[in-house]
């Protein structure tokens, strides 16, 4: 079973929430932990969640702004399956160097079985615990200005492209997925601007050249 396990990082205002909101815009089974309460979901979730857990409701888009609700959401996501769980500002829930709680470990390491897609959003790549980072099959990075964060992303994007990250304007990102990297700008609605999309690298043990192609609108 494949599942999406995505990490989205970027400085404040660089575009990571724009990307994430677009990604989940059509999702009809969605849990969101969002301290800012800005997603298009139902934050008055208690009754809806009860119906979901009792299998009386199959479609839902619910969210919470409270960190203490994240465990309920994580357990509910794992228990119900075939859903997406977005964790915004994951630094509020998971601190580097601290042990990850059992509900989160279950979701991270066994979430593939109930087909739970996860999106972790953070301002700094280096602040995400290794257990969370290690499972990612897609990494989106917007502007990162701290050298520790750029260094953390070097493994994913390579030295050359990770060095560019500190110069990115808002809404520009690098998108690593299963070995291939694209660079593109988002529109304000979160769509990649086709004219800006470049396949900047395909990871290959022997490949040291960069291939670039530009798609026109």
């Amino acid at each position, binding site marked *: 079973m494949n599942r999406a396990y995505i990490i989205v990082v970027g400085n404040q205002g660089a575009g990571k929430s724009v990307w994430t909101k677009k990604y989940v815009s059509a999702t009809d089974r969605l849990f969101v932990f969002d301290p800012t309460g800005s997603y298009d979901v139902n934050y008055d979730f*208690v*009754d809806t*969640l*009860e119906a979901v*857990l009792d299998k009386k409701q199959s479609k839902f888009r619910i969210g919470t702004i409270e960190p203490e*609700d994240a*465990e*309920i959401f*994580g*357990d*509910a996501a*794992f*228990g*119900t*399956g075939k859903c997406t769980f977005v964790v915004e500002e994951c630094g509020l829930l998971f601190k*580097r*160097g601290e*042990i*990850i709680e059992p*509900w989160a*470990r*279950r979701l991270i*390491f*066994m979430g593939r*079985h*109930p087909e739970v897609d996860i999106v972790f959003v953070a301002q700094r790549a280096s602040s995400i*615990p*290794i*257990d969370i*980072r*290690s*499972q*990612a*099959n897609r*990494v989106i990075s917007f502007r990162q200005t701290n050298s520790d964060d750029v260094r*953390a992303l070097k*493994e*994913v994007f390579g030295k050359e492209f990770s060095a560019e990250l500190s110069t990115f304007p808002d809404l520009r990102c690098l998108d*690593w997925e299963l070995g291939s990297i694209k660079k593109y700008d988002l529109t304000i609605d979160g769509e990649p601007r086709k004219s800006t999309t470049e396949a900047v690298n395909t990871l290959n043990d022997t490949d040291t050249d960069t291939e670039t192609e530009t798609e026109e609108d």
Partner: protein
Amino acid sequence: MGIFSSDDQKSETDLGTATGHNQTDTALLAAKGNLEKRRGRGRPPKDTAAPADNAPRVNAASGDLARLFDPTVWTPLVRLPADAMVALTGREFWNLQDKEAAALGASAASAAQYVGIENPKSLAISLFLVSAIVVYGPRALKELDARRAERAEAVKLK
């Protein structure tokens, strides 16, 4: 996968030996249990089924408490300080106009709804005690005043 592999952090991957299916059941039960606790943090339940311990369940939206949130119930209470001062001093400017009292009563009723949701029993008892003070308080003050006047009159005549 293995990206982000070089890091000085230790990886904690011990998940125990439970099977995937058991983990699903465990997660569901945990979610349900924590959701019930979450309800207890200030959200009234949607259903009003009788609890096992037979204690009366009060729902703020039910008729039981609707009367407590009626502004006309609160108007005499919010008039109490003014009425008390009229009784003590006899000065007419302490009298509240009807619309002043109505405005105070309406805002007090709104505020009471939030207190009521949290602790309806205390609200009901408090409301009774304050109502009793509203009814008897000014009369008691007038009685004391009248007796003082009678004693003063009696002293004069001696």
